[in-house]
């Protein structure tokens, strides 16, 4: 069980006032608030252990190396990977681009196919367009069902031996649907394709076991799981990381090179980490993982389930609210107020201290499936309370008067 009153004390942002009102932060799918332990982790690097990693022989440099190593181990434990399969990146976008450029462009050719869906975030679409541009490989779409879900049946309809990569989100960022990834991965593998997973919305919210799911690559961001911005992870099966080129060349990843241009690269994961890592980010990420482990991922799932069910039942009582994803598994509710443009509504919510996201959420799915140009997305996490939901529902009731904010 999650005790939100206890948790609230851990998050300084929850004491912030917005427009004279307590902040109700319902935009955790965009980024999450940070607990004090994560803030302390970042500050610890900046105040007590500042030095570069893997190049110093002195005490603090050694301590940094140990912490980087411990963080890699913590990430590996968190998703049941091996430590050497964890590459630090700046976030999900960089992770996916690393796979697209480092693996896709290197290994795909014009007869190959990449399968994605229309529900993908831009960061899991545009890198594949680039692979297509460079290699001639085709980007095709797995049809979604009427609800907007990716199903195994629909993958079977389009997958073939031409398919080399199936790139999908474990949880989609607009609809919040949880994909049966194990089944999708098995089908991809049956046809000799790799399964490349965008885990930005899933890893922070659901227990993730890359061995059980049998995924080939998994990308996620620290800042969506209580960690700092600018630090993220790419998991890749070790033999695939070996077959992949780095995106950047530079210091820390080359074992030796000579003037003729002969280069020996370090082994993965270090091979992909040219330049100085975001070390305070690494320190913070370790604390974030520990915080989530202390709470327990299954407790987080139960907490979000309960809040979501409550929010849906309250929203359904309102005639002016259209909910687009009533049956989603993740703590994401996508909706509109009838007759109110999403951005107008979110400005109104802001005046009540409520932070929600309006827009297309970087996904093309909206226009095709939801028949609307924009939506409001409210999303929750460990610190979200029933009171936050009540505030939001109450604001929805009055949302018809959204222009109030211009004339108060």
């Amino acid at each position, binding site marked *: 069980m999650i005790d939100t009153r206890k948790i609230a004390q851990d998050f300084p942002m929850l004491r912030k006032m917005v427009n004279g009102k307590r902040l109700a932060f319902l935009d955790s799918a965009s980024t999450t608030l940070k607990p004090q332990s994560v803030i302390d982790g970042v500050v610890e690097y900046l105040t007590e252990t500042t030095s570069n990693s893997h190049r110093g022989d002195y005490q603090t440099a050694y301590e940094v190396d140990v912490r980087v190593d411990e963080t890699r181990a913590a990430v590996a434990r968190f998703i049941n990977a091996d430590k050497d399969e964890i590459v630090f990146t700046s976030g999900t976008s960089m992770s996916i681009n690393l796979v697209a450029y480092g693996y896709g462009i290197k290994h795909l050719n014009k007869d190959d196919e990449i399968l994605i869906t229309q529900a993908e975030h831009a960061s899991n679409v545009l890198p594949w367009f680039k692979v297509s541009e460079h290699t001639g490989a085709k980007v095709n779409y797995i049809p979604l069902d009427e609800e907007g879900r990716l199903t195994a049946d629909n993958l079977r309809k389009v997958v073939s031996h031409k398919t080399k990569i199936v790139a999908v989100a474990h949880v989609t960022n607009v609809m919040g649907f949880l994909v049966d990834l194990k089944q999708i991965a098995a089908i991809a593998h049956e046809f000799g394709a790799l399964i490349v997973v965008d885990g930005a919305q899933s890893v922070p919210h659901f227990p993730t076991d890359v061995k059980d799911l049998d995924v080939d690559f998994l990308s996620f961001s620290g800042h969506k799981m209580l960690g700092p911005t600018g630090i993220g992870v790419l998991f890749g099966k070790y033999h695939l990381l070996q077959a992949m080129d780095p995106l950047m060349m530079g210091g820390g990843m080359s074992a030796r090179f000579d003037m003729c241009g002969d280069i020996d690269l370090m082994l993965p994961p270090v091979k992909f980490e040219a330049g100085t890592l975001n070390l305070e980010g690494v320190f913070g990420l370790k604390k974030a993982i520990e915080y989530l482990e202390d709470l327990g991922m299954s407790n987080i799932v139960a907490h979000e389930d309960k809040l979501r069910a409550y929010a849906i039942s309250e929203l359904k009582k309102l005639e002016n609210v259209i909910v687009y994803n009533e049956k989603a598994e993740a703590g994401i509710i996508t909706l509109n107020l009838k007759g109110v443009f999403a951005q107008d509504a979110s400005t109104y919510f*802001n005046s009540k201290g409520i932070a929600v996201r309006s827009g297309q959420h970087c996904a093309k799915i909206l226009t095709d499936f939801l028949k609307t140009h924009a939506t409001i997305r409210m999303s929750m996490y460990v610190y979200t309370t029933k009171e936050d939901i009540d505030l939001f529902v109450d604001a929805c009731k009055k949302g018809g008067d959204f222009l109030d904010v211009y004339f108060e």
Partner: protein
Amino acid sequence: MYTLNNPAIMRQIIMDHYEKPRNKRTVDDPRYIKIHMNSESCIDDIFVFMLVEDNTVIDCAWDGIGCTISTASTSVMSELLIGKSFKDALYIIRQYELMLDEQTFDKDVLDEAIVFINTSKQPSRLKCALIGWHGAESLIKQQGDNKK
């Protein structure tokens, strides 16, 4: 000239332009110049069309998708600019920008556009209030001969 003392009327004007936007149509006529404004924010996606002659805005139309503020502000703008010389049109646009920037401005030329004065209190919406206006400004400036 509209007054700022009556929020109800200002509100009515915004809603009226949102629900019944003026000059909202896609123009196929090759004599019109046009500009696509879709990079200033996540949602708004607007085309502005203009028929110009002798350094004058003969006609102004627009089409696209936007929130209340972008729709209503572009609608008001289109009415305001039709028939104006480039010089006058640019002056009006400048006064509108100054208003949104909370600076001193010449309110006599803004007519209904004055109802957007409170946008400065919602800074996240400034782009919405400006998208159509910036489109028109670019179109006029592109003409290159907007002599004083």
